[in-house]
């Protein structure tokens, strides 16, 4: 079924699921993590809305994922499901940065 669906639509569906699927973290938190991870890899300014272990994890995964450890989120007092939602939100932000910049450059070259 997915074979012929446009890639843009499938990429958007991933982000939609990670941001809005019912879970243990609020959509606002997931959006902030996604945006901050994306901003970090873009080398622009993070929102400043994240604090503590979540802010540290988001910065680490965006800078060098090998230094990020989702278990640290659990040790900071959040549940494992919440930690997974945070990790997924950051990861889709990292993908989105590549997608947006790549497609924007392609559009510019088309003009």
């Amino acid at each position: 079924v997915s074979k012929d669906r446009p890639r843009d639509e499938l990429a958007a569906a991933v982000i939609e699921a990670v941001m809005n699927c019912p879970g243990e973290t609020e959509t606002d938190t997931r959006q902030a993590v996604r945006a901050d991870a994306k901003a970090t890899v873009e080398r622009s300014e993070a929102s400043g809305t994240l604090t503590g272990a979540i802010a540290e994890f988001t910065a680490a995964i965006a800078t060098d994922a090998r230094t990020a450890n989702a278990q640290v989120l659990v040790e900071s007092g959040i549940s494992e499901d919440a930690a997974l939602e945070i990790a997924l939100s950051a990861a889709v932000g990292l993908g989105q940065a590549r997608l947006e910049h790549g497609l924007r450059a392609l559009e510019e070259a088309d003009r």
Partner: protein
Amino acid sequence: LRLQSVDEGHRLLAKIKLAFIGLSAGDRAPDILRLLLYRPELFGKSFMQYVNRALRGESEWSVGERELFAAYISKLNRCEFCLGSHYAVAAKVMGAEVVEQALDDWRKAELRDEVQGALGLLETLTPNPSSIGMASIEAAEAKGLSRGAIEEVIHICAMFCTINALADSLGFRVPAASTFARMAGPLLKHGYAM
């Protein structure tokens, strides 16, 4: 895996799938499957539709070339799990020697111009997305890439930057090269659809 619930907190059907895959592979089912099958509505289901479309759907690139792109992005991100997995699939299709050459120094590898153009684009887009501009696109076009082929490469970069970050932050166990090689056949035959 660093999150115990992702490691072993699956629903019954997923547990059965993981057990069956583990038996078939002669090893523990890989951690990527544990992630994808845990609360699949959150990530696994939509992500694998995206991956299967990009790596196995209609394309201007061969399956082997797309697997090579996945391996190269994973190398740039220093993600050992994804590099091992997609190297094995690319090598099975294209031959180990040319894949190793491409990952080592694609400029010297015996690849068609278009593949070199794609790897050149990925070399910038993966570590530094905001530096991609018209010049990068024009360089790829000069190697013969169409607009559609470039768009495909960009999507593959996006999805592998996502999964590389998860593999490392969740602590995926890296199987032996022989296990990756054994899994390459089924991945070629069945693709990535869940």
